[in-house]
């Protein structure tokens, strides 16, 4: 019943919307620059550290994946936290404000197709952002000899985390006409999910365990180490599915309320 053709039509429209305005270029450009800066800083730090190790003649090995890539990807996650609300805040709010939502909702499309189209479109932009950072990684491969598997796992983690942010951002955008409200609310909720495990200590071991499993960063950690754990995979995928499901409910209830 759901048609891939319709989803792609919406996704294409979303991407065109991003790239027709300066938004996409600014986001991709600045993300690339920030990622590059973190990358250079990490690289310098890593080179200094390995030189010191060599001078001390220590037998401790240095690992480029563990000591260089991992912190870079974690920093990238922080930048994504800031950037993502800017991508998702307009998705529904803008359609509601300009009235184009009437076109979508009176076309022979299911709510699922519209939501998936918007999700795929935003993921497309996010992939473009991550693609730019691969330039830095390519340089690393020229200079050294890192393992590619942990890097791929790390990028998969970022992609999944970005997917969570997008599905949550879509939900929040579907709740309001106001882009600024949508953007700020999205940012606030992301931040709460980010730091939720900080409060674990006061709740005892069980509470700590629950909260750290809910934390969006704790789930990313293993990916950046190069481990693809089904627990984390399940966490991210169900987070995305739940976010999209709630968005569908929100769009539907909007319909009833008028």
């Amino acid at each position, binding site marked *: 019943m759901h048609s891939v*053709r*319709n989803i792609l*039509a*919406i996704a*294409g*429209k979303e991407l*065109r*919307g991003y790239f*027709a*305005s300066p938004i996409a270029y600014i986001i991709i450009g600045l993300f690339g620059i920030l990622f590059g800066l973190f990358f250079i800083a990490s690289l310098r730090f890593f080179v200094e550290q390995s030189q010191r190790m060599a001078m001390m003649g220590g037998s401790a090995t240095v690992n480029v994946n563990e000591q260089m890539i991992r912190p870079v990807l974690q920093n990238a996650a922080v930048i994504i936290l800031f950037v993502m609300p800017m991508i998702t805040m307009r998705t529904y709010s803008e359609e509601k404000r*300009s*009235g*184009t*939502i*009437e*076109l*979508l*909702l*009176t*076309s*022979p*499309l*299911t709510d699922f197709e519209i939501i998936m189209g918007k999700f795929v479109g935003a993921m497309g932009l996010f992939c473009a952002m991550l693609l730019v950072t691969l330039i830095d990684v390519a340089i690393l491969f020229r200079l050294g000899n890192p393992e590619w598997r942990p890097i791929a796992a790390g990028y998969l983690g970022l992609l999944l985390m970005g997917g969570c942010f997008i599905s949550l951002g879509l939900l929040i955008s579907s709740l309001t006409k106001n882009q600024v409200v949508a953007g700020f609310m999205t940012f606030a909720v992301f931040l709460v999910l980010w730091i939720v495990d900080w409060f674990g200590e006061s709740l005892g071991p069980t509470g700590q365990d629950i909260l750290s499993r809910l934390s969006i960063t704790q789930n990313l950690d293993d990916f950046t180490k190069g481990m693809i754990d089904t627990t984390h995979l399940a966490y991210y995928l169900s987070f995305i599915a739940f976010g999209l499901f709630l968005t569908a409910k929100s769009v539907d209830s909007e*319909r*009833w*309320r*008028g």
Partner: protein
Amino acid sequence: MIEVQHVTKRYGRVTAVDDVSFRVERGEILGFLGPNGAGKTTTMRILTGYMPASEGRANVAGFDIFEHPIEAKRRIGYLPEAPPLYPEMTVREYLDFVSRIKGVPSAERRQRVTTVMERTHVADMADRHCGKLSKGYKQRVGLAQALIHNPDVLILDEPTAGLDPKQIIETRDLIRSLAGDHTIVLSTHILPEVAQTCQRVVIINRGRVVAVDTPDNLTARLKGAETMYVQVDAGSEEPGPALAQIPGVTRVSAAEGPAGGGFEVESDRGTDVRREIARAIVTRGWGLLELRPMRMSLEEVFLQVTTDETATPDPAAPREDAIHA
């Protein structure tokens, strides 16, 4: 083609549409007339599947809009009050996008886009961004969008709003030319538009249907008595009493107007007194300058059915200057 049965829409405690029922036959143009806030847009949104009704059923092009929304929506073209344009897309890109989501087969898409651009006179703006168009062009691209998948049913919410007089005439002609192949429901608050384009009128006020009929019948039905406008050149004489003596005439009053010597002559309903009036004037040697029946304008009908105090319509104003868009 369209059948609306007892549709009610409530927002919380406010009832926007209250037990509305009407039918539209295939190929017909139905005018939806009502003051602002009467429930026109809400009814149209329910018909197009944008929002569900609180109660009642609506069948569009053979499909129940609540139970088979996708099938029904395939057969509906809808122009909302504000044309739903994406400012960053060019007209051509936009129409291509709409043709995709409306399910136009890819082989026909380019041809459909070209055809509707020509029909709605927007071809010269094909590569202009939608956000940079004038109000009139935006409205016409909105209309093009509604036509793109050649739907059985067209639902147009104020299709001529924001257009200049020439564009209004073009759009009305376009809408009239679409009837037959398409079944059209259009809403407006411009009364001559209804008289000129629609075969049937639904007048809606405060969410309720207050009248359904042809524009002619509506004006005739609500007209209590036949009224003639007579302009006489009687020299120094006073023609009023002479007119009042004609058999069948119930009332004579001087009409306001720029020219002197104008009278409104009322007679019993169904009696035509034109011959008697003409004879009475001519036999007295006066000049008969003008003699024509006065009909209640749609505007007066509208005011009468939508105003709670059923004031008797004031037929003083001649029809011509009573209504102008």
